[in-house]
């Protein structure tokens, strides 16, 4: 019979406050004695070094062959206790951690009931551990190359960190140039650094780095494999430019006769040509031909760019190219979209010309933007005399997004400062709450307050152009209640800027699916742990950085990009990683050759030997889901870690059926 030790954790009062831990331990020692339990203890903090020593000592002195720890979720401390067992000479997979905190004390309210459930949970663990078998972790090697998806500031930072450490990076960007949203901005809060001045040197470093292979105008189509050994298929869309010949001189877009409204980089505020680079400092410098808008592709004639190109770099015959790369780690930094302000019809966006979004204003006040940085109304010549900035448009609103978009308060302050400085206009900030944490932010708020910006606390009800008196004629009227005074106000303005929410990319769900990670209900990618591991995902070897994980400002994005790179570098340096040895295998003697399992594996790990009429599972490809184990009618497939015996035993234990029965085998 196995010698089982049961260890019940108080977790301070987290568990002990709702579960009588001492009673659970005493009960286990007495009632589960016939199930193999020879010792049961409770302790204040099992995960502390003293708690772990308790277990190690028992393994050595009492000769325990199995350990059950009743504490928090295995996702938190399974490794801690397995390692403790290993130190004491017990195979780590002979330790079972059952959750009586997340699944019992934190979710139930009656101490007697919670204690009874904790006993059942412990009993389930004891039964299960009887059928645990010693396992050895599977070692797999880590490919030293890394794939970074998304060339905004998060992806740029991550790529540079890894490349500077001496390892190869593939940086994939969907647009013709890297730079992301940050490249669209004029100034950055709270220091009012010029965004381009601090970003473009990094972009140039990426473009010239010997360890970075930059793949712009490209998208990842497919990802196979697992940590250390991913294979990514990347579609390089046809640029119609021979990049080895192109010098980026710009004659092609000068000569191109087709003007197109630029909805991406200029946020619809400006135009570009059909052959273009999104902005002057684009990296790489090569343009792309926008096929749906190119006159040659539409009508079959034009080729102005080809005629004038001094290096014959235009090639209308190019086609999309699929390339595959082998990488060990993947960093996802695909960024965010902005909220469509048309969804809030009462704010008049799309209907009233001088109601614009925050991203449009960024372009409007950008020195390289459509007005060369002059803040002008839609007529292109009038300076506004009064400007309103509406906060939380699509954020903190149960009709759209419940979350706070983090950056809008500081962005609103930045806009207020810029409008004030460049036009001398009266500026009104309409806010729900001002949120200015982090370094230098509150000071910036005070500075803008001192500049004479008006702050009105209230959610704007409506923006319209229906004048009621002479002062309001030709103006935009903001209807708002100043909730600090309790007064309804109508404020006539020339321009209204809507601070639109940051939203997950429209295709974030597909992206998550493609990389095998999960999204929250909102669509942000889910981190492994919200506090202790906000960089990793549930899928080993895939990390997230920047706004894909949730709204954040530039410093936080850079931090996360660097952190993701550090995690990937850690893996690369370790050269190999130990994986959970949960794999399925076939007992050839039992296999009837029915082939029911053959079509069930999405990883192609199951192969059938026609000559012997038996199925075999390739352990290198098996991911351990267990679907084939459950499907085999002959019971010929077994899975380590989650065997039928273990699960059935746990069911019995949870139902407290076998307290007085002798232990099988």
């Amino acid at each position, binding site marked *: 019979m196995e010698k089982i030790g049961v260890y019940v954790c108080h977790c301070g009062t987290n568990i002990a406050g709702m579960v009588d831990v001492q009673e659970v331990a005493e009960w286990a020692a007495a009632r589960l004695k016939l199930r193999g339990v020879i010792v049961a203890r409770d302790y204040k903090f099992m995960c502390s070094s003293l708690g772990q020593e308790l277990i190690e000592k028992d393994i050595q002195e009492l000769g325990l062959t199995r350990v059950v720890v009743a504490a928090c*979720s*295995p*996702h938190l401390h399974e490794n801690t206790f397995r390692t403790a067992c290993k130190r004491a000479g017990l195979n780590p997979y002979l330790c079972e951690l059952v*959750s009586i*905190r*997340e*699944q*019992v004390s*934190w*979710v*139930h*309210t*009656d101490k*007697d*009931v*919670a204690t*009874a*459930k904790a006993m*059942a*949970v412990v009993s*389930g663990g004891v039964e299960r551990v009887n059928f645990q078998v010693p396992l050895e972790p599977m070692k797999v090697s880590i490919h030293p190359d890394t794939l970074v998806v998304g060339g905004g500031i998060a992806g740029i930072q991550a790529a540079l960190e890894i490349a500077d450490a001496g390892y190869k990076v593939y940086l994939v960007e969907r647009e013709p140039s890297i730079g992301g949203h940050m490249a669209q901005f004029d100034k950055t809060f709270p220091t009012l650094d010029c965004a381009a001045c601090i970003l473009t040197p990094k972009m140039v470093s990426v473009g010239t780095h010997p360890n970075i292979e930059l793949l712009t105008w490209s998208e990842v189509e497919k990802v196979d494999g697992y940590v250390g050994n991913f294979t990514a298929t990347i579609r390089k869309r046809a640029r119609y430019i021979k990049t080895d010949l192109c010098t980026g001189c710009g004659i092609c877009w000068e000569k191109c006769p087709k003007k197109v409204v630029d909805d991406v980089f200029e946020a619809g505020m400006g135009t570009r040509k059909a052959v273009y680079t999104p902005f002057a400092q684009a990296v790489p410098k090569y343009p792309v031909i926008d096929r749906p808008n190119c006159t040659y592709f539409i009508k079959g004639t034009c080729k102005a760019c080809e005629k004038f190109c001094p290096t014959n770099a235009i090639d209308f015959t190019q086609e999309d190219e699929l390339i595959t790369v082998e990488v060990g780690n993947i960093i996802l930094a695909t960024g965010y979209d902005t909220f469509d302000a048309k969804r809030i019809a009462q704010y008049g966006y799309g209907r009233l010309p001088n109601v614009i979004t925050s991203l449009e204003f960024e372009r409007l006040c950008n020195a390289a933007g459509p007005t060369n940085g002059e803040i002008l109304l839609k007529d292109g010549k009038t300076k506004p005399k009064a400007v309103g900035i509406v906060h939380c448009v699509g954020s903190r609103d149960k009709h759209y997004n419940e979350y706070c978009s983090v950056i809008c308060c500081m962005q609103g302050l930045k806009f207020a400062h810029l409008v004030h400085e460049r036009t001398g206009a009266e500026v009104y900030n309409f806010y729900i709450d001002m949120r200015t944490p982090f370094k230098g932010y509150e000071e910036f708020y005070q500075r803008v307050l001192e500049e004479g910006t008006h702050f009105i606390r209230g959610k704007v009800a409506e923006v319209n152009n229906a004048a009621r008196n002479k002062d309001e004629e030709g103006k935009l009227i903001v209807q708002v209640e100043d909730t600090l005074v309790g007064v309804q106000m109508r404020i006539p303005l020339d321009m209204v800027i809507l601070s639109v929410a940051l939203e997950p990319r429209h295709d974030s769900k597909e992206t*998550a*699916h493609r990389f*095998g990670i*999960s*999204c*929250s*209900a909102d669509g942000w990618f*889910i981190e492994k742990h919200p506090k202790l591991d906000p960089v990793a995902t*549930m*899928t080993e070897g895939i990390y997230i950085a920047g706004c894909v994980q949730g709204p954040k400002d530039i410093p936080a994005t850079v931090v996360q990009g660097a952190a993701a790179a550090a995690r990937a570098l850690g893996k690369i340096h370790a050269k190999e990683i130990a994986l959970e040895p*949960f794999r399925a295998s076939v007992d050839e003697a039992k296999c009837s050759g029915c082939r029911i399992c053959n079509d*069930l594996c*999405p*990883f192609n790990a199951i192969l059938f030997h026609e000559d012997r009429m038996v199925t075999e599972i390739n352990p290198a490809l098996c991911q*351990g*889901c*267990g*679907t084939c*184990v*459950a*499907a085999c009618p002959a*019971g010929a497939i077994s*899975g380590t870690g*989650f065997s*039928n*015996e273990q*699960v*059935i*035993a*746990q*069911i*019995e234990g*949870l*139902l407290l*059926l*076998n307290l007085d*029965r002798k232990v*099988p*085998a």
Partner: protein
Amino acid sequence: MTNINIFEPVIIGFTCNWCSYRAADLAGTSRTKYAPNVRLIRLMCSGRLDPTFVFKALANGADGVMITGCHPGECHYLEQNYKAMRRFHLMRRTLQGLGIEPARVKLVWASAAEGAKFAHEVTSFVEEVRALGPLNWGSGENGHVTELKSTPQEALA
């Protein structure tokens, strides 16, 4: 469970390591309360759910079984939750054939972010099973098997 006149069902819940087990963890860390009648088992995937497990649980005293997995299209193993879904429909038909209410088995999709949904589904399933009454699939006192007829190996043979 303080009032002995109210039937308290026992539910076995199967969870997927990647989504619903984490939803249960999230319900815990968010201190979202739910009915204590459920006892959870972690599998690597809902596709691992051998129908035997469900029948075993019901035969051994559980009044209901809740199967949980990743939402369609979000399976950690690409598509194995679809296989769980197919087996689920088959299981319900089999249960009906045995004269057991199919509503004693429920399939719930819960992502790692849906702690509140997980808690809500547990509580409402407990009420659904409470309404069905005890299953009494067994011979012992109060419908609970007091002694096992087989070892796990025999049960699976």
